[in-house]
């Protein structure tokens, strides 16, 4: 036995920034923060979600699509996948701009998928005879491409936002996508250390749908039950990574069923029954109802997540805090990360730094700041 064998000690790293006053921050800032936690990942995935980056196209849905190989599936020419996807998009949507996502090939990211973006609108009449909203329609388009078109994956589909992700360390992915050229009011970042599934471009975080984006450190042990629950509502789980369910759970609970975000957070990290028994009656009834109705949405297992959307950023832990999570404030900016040092790297002198309690979300809303 080789006693000098060095274990690769890692555990995924997260970082997030939001300026709730809407001031835009360069992508180089979040890059610097997540790069400090380099050793939390192993180069098998890095990614970013950015909000407020496409003000010139803010009324368009921005579809970021990768044409790439998928683990365990046959691969064809990516140009063919692109042609099939573009023919479908032209039929399904009004495509006002189609272009390559600008990238800079470096020795750190030597190979990459075909990466394209499409600024689209829903055509008049395309939803005729259905009860679909525009958002519902876009979701159906995303599900169709991810599920039905081989080697094509939509990796973000919101308005005035975008995801940038791939196989590599996050700082190298940031350089590859030249994130220093983007400015957003909200950013999240992820450094991946894949545990249960192999690293591939589609499996890097964030996972997004419309303007929801999730970066996640941990494991969703309840993946099976969450997946079956979501499939009942028409979601197709195509990305081979547990985190995908978190994105769709929030889409289902908040966008489609209209739950307040705080209630959705309670559903995914529900209080223990022993603690519910100790609550005042009104709280107890609310918690019991949420646990009973949304039992299959409960996320079991260790996690820290950052959950971005166009109007804010939420960070939270599992119910017994099995993953690290620190938050800080300075002026109208709120920071959240796996390690305090990752915050101090970009904000050396925060006004307040704290470790949020297990299962207690830190929710920031644009224009308001931290809300209860």
């Amino acid at each position, binding site marked *: 036995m080789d006693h000098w064998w060095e274990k690769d000690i890692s555990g995924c790293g997260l970082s997030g920034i939001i300026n709730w006053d809407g001031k835009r921050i360069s992508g180089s800032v979040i890059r610097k923060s997540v790069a*400090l*936690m380099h*050793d939390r990942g192993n180069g098998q995935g890095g990614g970013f979600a950015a909000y407020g980056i496409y003000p010139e196209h803010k009324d368009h849905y921005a579809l970021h699509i990768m044409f790439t190989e998928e683990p365990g599936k046959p691969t064809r020419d990516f140009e063919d996948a692109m042609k099939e996807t573009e023919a479908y998009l032209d039929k399904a949507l009004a495509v006002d701009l189609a272009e390559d996502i600008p990238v800079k090939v470096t020795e750190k990211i030597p190979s990459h998928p075909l990466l394209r973006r499409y600024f689209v609108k829903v055509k008049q009449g395309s939803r005729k005879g259905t009860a679909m909203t525009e958002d519902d329609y876009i979701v159906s388009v995303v599900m169709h491409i991810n599920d039905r078109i081989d080697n094509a994956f939509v990796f973000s589909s919101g308005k005035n936002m975008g995801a940038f992700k791939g196989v590599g360390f996050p700082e190298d992915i940031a350089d590859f996508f030249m994130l220093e050229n983007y400015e957003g009011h909200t950013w999240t970042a992820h450094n991946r250390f894949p545990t249960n599934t192999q690293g591939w471009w589609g499996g890097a975080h964030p996972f997004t749908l419309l303007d929801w984006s999730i970066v996640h450190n941990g494991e969703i042990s309840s993946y099976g039950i969450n997946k079956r629950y979501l499939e009942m509502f028409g979601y197709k789980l195509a990305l081979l990574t547990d985190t995908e369910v978190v994105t769709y759970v929030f889409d289902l609970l908040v966008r489609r069923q209209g739950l307040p975000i705080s209630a959705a957070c309670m559903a995914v990290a529900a209080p223990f029954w*022993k*603690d519910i028994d*100790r609550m005042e009656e009104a709280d107890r009834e609310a918690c019991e109802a949420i646990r009973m109705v949304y039992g299959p949405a409960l996320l079991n297992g260790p996690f820290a997540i950052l959950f971005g959307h166009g109007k804010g950023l939420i960070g939270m832990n599992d119910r*017994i*805090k099995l993953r*690290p999570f*620190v938050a800080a404030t300075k002026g109208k900016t709120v920071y959240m990360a796996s*390690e*305090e*040092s*990752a915050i*101090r*790297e970009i904000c050396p002198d925060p006004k307040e*730094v704290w*470790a949020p*309690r*297990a299962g207690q979300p830190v929710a920031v809303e644009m224009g308001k700041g931290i809300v209860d």
Partner: protein
Amino acid sequence: MTIDAKGIYYRQLNERVREEIKKGAADVVLDNVNGQRYIADGLRGKARITINGVPGNDLAAFMDGPTLIVNGNAQDGVANTMNDGKIIINGNAGDVLGYGMRGGKLYIKGDVGYRVGIHMKGFKSQIPVIIAGGTAGDFFGEYMAGGLLVLLGIGRKKGEPIAGSYLGTGMHGGVMYVRGFVDPRDCGAEVGILEPNEEEMAELSAYLKEYCKDTGHDYDRLMKEKFIKIYPKSSRPYGRLYAY
């Protein structure tokens, strides 16, 4: 001996610290530390290391002798399996502090996170001591097997509990003192709660005097509030679990 740690990768920084100590430096100051892991891990001897900034995870794991002073907050995993020496943290500290700690002292001025003092152990003169000034999260002293774990609750907000749930779950050795009230429903089934006797208070006071000197807390003010003692009801709580 001062080292500017700004932007230095943990491996180079720790090599540098070891070299200086090997050359005879008794007092090493690290400025601008931010996130460097594994500082003073497995380090022996009597050197004193002052860390200005926020050191990274696994500070002082397996440390055996030195004194560390952290002027800042500390992250997760401080003093894992530490054997001897002393750590003073002039700030808050993260989760899983003093895991399996078997000797030495860990004094934290402020709050601590989850799973502090899990499976601390003691034997004869080896008595690990953790004193935390503020509040603690869940699983404080879980599976504790020896040593001394003290929680002071200084500066907590009104109505805020001093510790979280599952306090002392599986505890079967050592002793905890908490300054204030702990709801028995938040404690493991394996612990009992008593008022400390005079002899026990005298022992605790000696540690607290030292702690206050190190961290700047006011000893007299501290002692105005009552302490409770949390102890294991059995040294083998699961001895009959699989033997009926």
